[in-house]
């Protein structure tokens, strides 16, 4: 990876530092809130989801589009890099930004499940699946945003994938392999769990790698 790509990744982290820090802080605060009892749990869970979604949206839209909007794209493209290098830097940079926030928030969530006695450990597998879903969700948004030529298209991608969060919660939670053990005292890693996990990872990998083959080959970047 050449120095320009590395510098651009560092730039991405620098530029988006407030989103990342804010998102991570919101995630942690939400978890703390969720630890304060039943009411707190519902509110905290909701704000936790919102924080992750919001950070993902900001990075996915603003992070990708802001150079184009602010006419700084020509400046970046005049650097010694190819279009493929640029796409790579964007993908890696914005993914790194999200990962920081996501690791903190997911870690906090899992910590809550294992540490708080009033929350059954059996919910751990579902929590893992939910966390990973959020990551895959972001990756799809990022992938769509990088390929989309217009803001309208990007917004459509975001709306659709966020509907996916609700759909996920309503379809995965009631799955027999999940629901049965969700309220138990110990986590049970059923085959259903592994199947869903596998699907999520597959989506994640495809969404992450697609730009390296598609957008990177784009002939016209302006």
């Amino acid at each position, binding site marked *: 990876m050449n120095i320009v790509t590395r510098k651009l990744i560092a730039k991405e982290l620098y530029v988006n530092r407030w989103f990342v820090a804010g998102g991570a802080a919101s995630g942690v605060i939400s978890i703390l809130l969720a630890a304060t009892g039943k009411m707190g749990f519902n509110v905290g869970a909701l704000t936790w989801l919102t924080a992750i979604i919001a950070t993902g949206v900001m990075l996915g839209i603003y992070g990708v589009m802001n150079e184009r909007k602010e*006419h700084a794209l020509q400046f970046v493209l005049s650097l010694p890099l190819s279009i493929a290098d640029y796409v790579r830097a964007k993908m890696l940079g914005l993914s790194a930004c999200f990962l920081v926030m996501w690791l903190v928030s997911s870690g906090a969530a899992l910590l809550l499940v294992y540490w708080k006695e009033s929350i059954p450990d059996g919910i751990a597998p579902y929590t893992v699946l939910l966390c990973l879903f959020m990551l895959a969700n972001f990756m799809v948004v990022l992938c769509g945003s990088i390929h989309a030529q217009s803001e309208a298209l990007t917004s459509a991608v975001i709306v659709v994938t966020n509907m996916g969060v609700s759909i996920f919660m309503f379809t995965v939670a009631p799955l027999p392999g999940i629901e049965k053990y969700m309220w138990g005292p110990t986590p049970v890693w059923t085959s259903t769990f592994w199947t869903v996990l596998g699907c999520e990872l597959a989506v994640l990998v495809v969404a992450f790698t697609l730009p390296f083959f598609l957008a990177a080959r784009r002939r016209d970047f302006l």
Partner: protein
Amino acid sequence: MNDKHIEMRGVRKNFRFFTLDEVSLELEPGQIMGFVGPNGAGKSTTLRLMMGMITPDAGEIRVLGHEIPRAQAVAKRDIGFVSAEMRLLPHATLGWHMEFMRSIYPEWDGSYAATLVKRFNLRPAQNARSLSLGEHVKATLLLALARRPRLLILDEPTTGLDPVARHEVISELMDVLRDESRSILFSSHNTVDVERISDTITFIDRGRIVESGDKEQFLDRWRRIHVQLPPGATLPELPNIVKREADGHFITLITNQYSDGLKNLAGPHVTQVQRMNLEEIFVANVVYNRETRGQ
């Protein structure tokens, strides 16, 4: 070993409402080329093609010996690109950009950069968002010049600049040419500047190169011939007349291939032969070119 700085051959690029067609262009080291044409002629498109930001549909492009767009990352190590619509990264200061460039380009000359900051009247602590158009142009020029690149590709580099700033920029560009291994290609609407500092001039109109060549020859070839015919006299048929205007007995001819022979052919009633400045040549050339192409 081919050492031209820019070579474009038969380049074609189709857009929905516009086509760049059969564009061929050459820039030698040690030269400065002025690239002129009306708005929408395809100047910016041509420059972006050279930088690999767009890919041609046909034709070849080589910049500093590298195939474009395939080897653009290597080529751009030694190319400085400035365009009037280019903006710096909005979140950062000019100082941040200078540091950014320093870390990417080993040839970055910090003391020259500092000199340019003063000369261009810029402030490193200023955030990119608050820069005016003219300041943006000067800032991006600074970032390009301080790297001392072998080739500078500039799209309207004097946009938004007051006369003093323009003079400073022109001086810096001419300083680049002290080194005969460096070259500049710049597009501009400022025909006065183009006429003054260019070694070669390329005219483009509606996606096609109209003419390209030595500036001094251009200025030598074009003339306005004034004729005052006495009653009953006529003007003989003359070759290479690009425009003819008659106002009673007063006839004005514009030619693009002037010679003393032509003047003699025109006869004894020629009152004056005037040189034309680049702006006048530009307009006459474009109009003539459109007429001959049936547009």
